[in-house]
C-alpha cells in the first residue's frame, strides 16, 4: 500500500528518441521488402503505393505500443524490496483519453478516404474495353473471346494484348471459384448463378500465373493456368489461329505424343499427370485414381470413355465431378487418339 520512493523522472524524451529511430528503421525495412509479385497491370501501381502508405502509418503505431511496454518493463519492473508496494492511484485523464480517441479516428478516416480514391481509380471504366468471359469449373478455367457475328473463341489459356483495357465477366459452372492473377492485383469470385466483373489493363508483357483463390474442392491447389500478356500483333495472330478449325493446328506438325500429353498436357488441357499416378509417365499425383492400379486390363473404348465422360463410371472412393468433363473439347481428336493409344499400350504391359 505504500508508494515507492524511486526516481520518478519519466523517460519520455528517451522514449520518443528510441521510438523515432525504431520507426525509421521499421519503415525502411517495410519499404525495402519486396512484398508484391511483379506488377503487370495499371491497377498494380496505385495498390502498391497504398500498401507503402499503410506501412509508413502502421510501423510507428506498433513501435509506440512496443516502446511503452518495453520502457515500462525496464523502468517500472518490481525490484527486490518492492514486493508490497503499490503504484500511484491514477484513475484516468480525460484529456489524454480524448486525444487517443480522436487521433486514431482521424488517421483511419484519412486512410479510408485515400483507399476510396484508389478504389475508384482501379475500377474506373476505360475506353475501348475488350470483353472476356471467364468460366470457372472444377478444376479448370475457360476464357471466351466474343467475336462480332461469330462463335466466341474459347481457350484454356488466357491471352491478353498489352495496354488494352480488359473487362472480365466471370461465371462458375459448379461451386465458387476465384479468378485471381496476382500480377494484376485484382480478383473476384466466380459465383454460380451470377456474373461478376472486374477490369484490368495489362501493361507488361510476360507470362503470369492465374490462381483459383477460393477453396473449390479436391483439385483447388491445381486449378492453375497461365495468363500471357503479348503484343497487340501477337494477340491478333493468336486470335486468328484460334478461329481456324482445330485440326489446322495438328495438321502442320507431326503426330502428337501421348506420353507427353499425359505428363505435360497440351497447353490447353490440364495434364493427366497433375492428378493421376502413372509410373510409365513418371507422375505421382493422387487427386484421381492411381492408373498403375486402375489401368491394366482396360481396352481402348473404355479408356476413351473415362477421359471424355469421367463421371459415367467412377472408381471406388472417388466422387463425381472431380475430373473436368471437358477433355473432349480441350483435346483435339488427334490428341485424344494419341492419348488413348498410349494408355492402351501401358494397359497392355
Amino acid at each position, binding site marked *: 500500500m505504500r508508494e515507492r520512493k524511486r526516481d520518478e523522472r519519466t523517460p519520455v524524451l528517451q522514449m520518443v528518441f528510441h521510438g523515432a529511430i525504431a520507426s525509421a528503421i521499421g519503415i525502411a525495412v517495410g519499404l525495402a521488402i519486396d512484398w508484391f509479385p511483379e506488377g503487370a497491370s495499371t491497377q498494380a501501381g496505385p495498390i502498391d503505393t497504398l500498401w507503402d502508405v499503410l506501412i509508413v502509418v502502421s510501423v510507428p503505431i506498433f513501435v509506440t505500443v512496443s516502446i511503452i511496454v518495453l520502457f*515500462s518493463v525496464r523502468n*517500472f519492473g518490481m525490484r527486490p524490496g518492492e514486493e508490497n508496494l503499490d503504484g500511484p492511484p*491514477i484513475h484516468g485523464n480525460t484529456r489524454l483519453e480524448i486525444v487517443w480517441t480522436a487521433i486514431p479516428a482521424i488517421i483511419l478516416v484519412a486512410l*479510408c478516404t485515400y483507399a476510396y480514391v484508389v478504389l475508384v481509380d482501379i475500377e474506373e471504366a476505360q475506353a475501348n474495353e475488350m470483353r472476356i468471359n471467364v468460366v470457372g469449373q472444377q478444376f479448370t478455367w475457360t476464357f471466351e473471346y466474343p467475336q462480332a457475328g461469330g462463335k466466341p473463341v474459347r481457350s484454356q489459356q488466357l491471352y491478353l494484348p498489352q495496354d488494352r483495357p480488359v473487362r472480365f465477366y466471370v461465371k462458375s459452372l459448379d461451386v465458387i471459384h476465384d479468378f485471381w492473377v496476382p500480377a494484376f492485383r485484382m*480478383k473476384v469470385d466466380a459465383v454460380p448463378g451470377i456474373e461478376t466483373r472486374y477490369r484490368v489493363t495489362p501493361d507488361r508483357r510476360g507470362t503470369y500465373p492465374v490462381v483459383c483463390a477460393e477453396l473449390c474442392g479436391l483439385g483447388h491447389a491445381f486449378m492453375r493456368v497461365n495468363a500471357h500478356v503479348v503484343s497487340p500483333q501477337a494477340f491478333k495472330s493468336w486470335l486468328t489461329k484460334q478461329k481456324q478449325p482445330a485440326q489446322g493446328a495438328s495438321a502442320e506438325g507431326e503426330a502428337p505424343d501421348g506420353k507427353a500429353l499425359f505428363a505435360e498436357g497440351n497447353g490447353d488441357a490440364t495434364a493427366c499427370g497433375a492428378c493421376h499416378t502413372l509410373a510409365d509417365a513418371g507422375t505421382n499425383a493422387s487427386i484421381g485414381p492411381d492408373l498403375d492400379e486402375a489401368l491394366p486390363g482396360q481396352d481402348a473404348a473404355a479408356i476413351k470413355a473415362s477421359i471424355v465422360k469421367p463421371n459415367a463410371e467412377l472408381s471406388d472412393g472417388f466422387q463425381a465431378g472431380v475430373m473436368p468433363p471437358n477433355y473432349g473439347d480441350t483435346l483435339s481428336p488427334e490428341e485424344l487418339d494419341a492419348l488413348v493409344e498410349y494408355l492402351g499400350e501401358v494397359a497392355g504391359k
Partner: protein
Amino acid sequence: MKLRAPGFPRAGLFTALGVAFSYALILAVRGAYGYDPLLKGEAVLELSLIAAPLFFLVGLGAFDYWFRWASGAPTIPEEHSSHGAHSWRDYFKVNTDHKVIGIQYVVTSFFFLMVGGVLAMLMRAELAQPGRQFVDANTFNGLFSVHASILIFLFIIPVFAGLANYVLPLMIGAPDMAFPRLNALSFWMLPLAGLMMILSFFAPGGSFASGWTAYAPLSTTAPEGQVFFTIGVQFAGASSIATALNFLVTIITMRAPGMSFFRMPLLVWANFSTSLLVVIATPFVAASQFFVLFDRALGFNFFQSTNGGDVLMYQHVFWFYSHPAVYIMMLPGFGIISEVLAVKSRKPIFGYRMMAFSLLAIVALGFTVWAHHMFVSGMQDWIRIPMMITTAIIAVPTGIKIFSWLATLWRGVLHLDTPMLFALGFLSMFTLGGISGVMLAMIPVTIHVSDTYFIVAHIHYVLFGGSLLTIFAGVYYWFPKMTGRMYDEKLGKLHFWTTFIFFNATFAPMHLIGVQGMPRRVADYAEQFGNWNLFISIASFFVGLSTLIFVYNMVSSWRGGPRAVANPWRALTLEWQVSSPPPIFNFDAVPTVVGGPYEYGVPGAVHGIFGPARPADVPTPAGAPAPAESPKE
C-alpha cells in the same frame, strides 16, 4: 452396471436407442412415401447425428430434474448432491456447481486445443515442401477444416466460457450461476460437438473439407463428412447460447449488494458484452448450417442457383454471425487482460468507464462490419464502402483499450511473472493483428490479399497472439484459485518465451508469402514459396513443443504443486477474498461491495467486505484445505 441411474452406462444405452429411433423414423417416413430404397444410409446418419447426442444427454441425466418436475413427480429444490466435486470421478458426471463446470469446460477445451494443434502439425508437415508428401488433397482439405472448426468452436469460445464460469459468479459475489442445470447441459453438449467433428474423419469420403466457413454450394455437394460439421456446429452453438443467457441473467440479477454496474470488474463487463453478442449472433450460424442441412438432406434449393437459390446469401448469413464471433473470441480476453494488468501493475485500470463503454461500442459496431469478408465475393459494389469505414472505425474503441492498458502500466510496480508476461505479449501481438486488420479494411488491399496467407497470418495474430495469449494469462492467473496449488513459475516463463518466439517465427513470414501470391487452403504451392514454408513448418513444430511445457506444468503443479494461499496476488476482486479453492457455495457470508474493483495504491481501499462491520482486507493467509477431497460440509 446401473442402467436405470443417470450416468455413462445409461447414456450408452440411450445413444443406441437414439440410433434405433433414427432407423425406425427413416423407415417409417420412406415407407409412407413409397421411396426406393426403403433404407437410405445417409438419411439415417444425418438423423442419428441429431438424435443420438440428444438421447445421450437424456441418458446421462442432464434432463432428469426437468422431466421429473414437468411430469409432476417429486423434486427436491434444495438438493445439492450434484454440487461440488469430491473426487476426480465427479468431473465425469452432470454436475451443477459452476466451479466444477468451469474446470470441466477448461480441461475439455484444452484437450481440443491439443487435437487442433496436432492437426496443424500434420498440415505443416505436408506444407514443409512443395508437392505431395504425407496426405492427399482430400485429407489436407479435411485437416484445415477440422483444425479451424475445433479451435474456434471447441477451444477459444468454450475456454473463455469455462474461465468465466469459474470466476464470474465469485467476482460478483454470487453463490452460483443463475441456472445451474442449464449450465451443466451447456457443458455436456460441447464434448459431443467435438467428438462429432473428430469422428468425421471416419465418414465415407473423408471428413468435412470445405473449410470452417463451409461455403455453399461446395458444402451442399460435398460427401457425407460435411454433415458432421453442419450438425456439430448446432450443438456447439446451442451450448454457447445457453451459457450466454446464463451469464446475462447471472450478471443482471445476482450481483452482491453494492455491486453496481460500474463497480463490476472488467472481466464481468467483458463477458456481459460477449454474451450479448452470442445471444444475438449465434442463431445466424445455426440458421446457415440448417439451410445447408436442408439443401443436402431434404432437397431444398436455398443455394442451388439453377433452381432459384442464392449462393451469396449463405455468406451474408454466415458472416453475420462469424464476424461478431471474432469479438466473441476476443472480448473475454480483453477482460482477462484488464484483471491481470491492474493487479500485476499494482495500479487502478486507467479510464475504467471508457474501458467498459468501449466494450459496448465494439458490440454495436461488431454487427456492422460482416461484409468485409466478402469484398471479392461479387456482392453489390456499394456495400463495400460503408463496411470499409465501419471496419476501420472499430479500431477506435479497440485502440482506446490498448492505450488505456499502456497507461495502466505506466509508473506501476510491474510484477513480471507468467500471467503478466502473457498479458504484455498479448499487448504487442494483438496490436500487430489489429494493424493488419486495418490494412484489410482497405478494399484495394483486400482485393489482392483476400484468400491468401496474409489472411492466415492476420487471423492467427488475432486468435493466437490475441486470444490464446490471454487464455494462457488467465489460466496461469486463476490457477491457484481453481486448483489450490501454485504453478511452476520457471516453467511458466519458459513456456511464455518459447511460445512468443516461435509463434512469431511461424506466422510473421505468412504475411509476406501471402502478399507475394500464395493462396491459402492449398496442399501444394509454387516452388518460390518453398524456403519460407520449410522455415514456417519447423517453427510451428516448436510452437507445438512449447505447449507440452504448459501441459506438463499444469498437470504436475495440480498434482503436487505448493499449496496456494487465498490471495497470492494481493488482488482486491472478490474471488481472491475466499479460500483457494473457494468453499462449496463460494461465500460463507454474503459480501457487500463498497468500492471499485481496482483501487490499488489507494490507502486502505477495499472492494468488498464480509458482514457489515468486518473489513475484508485481512483474508485468510494460511494455506487453504486441499481442493476436491475436503468439502466444507
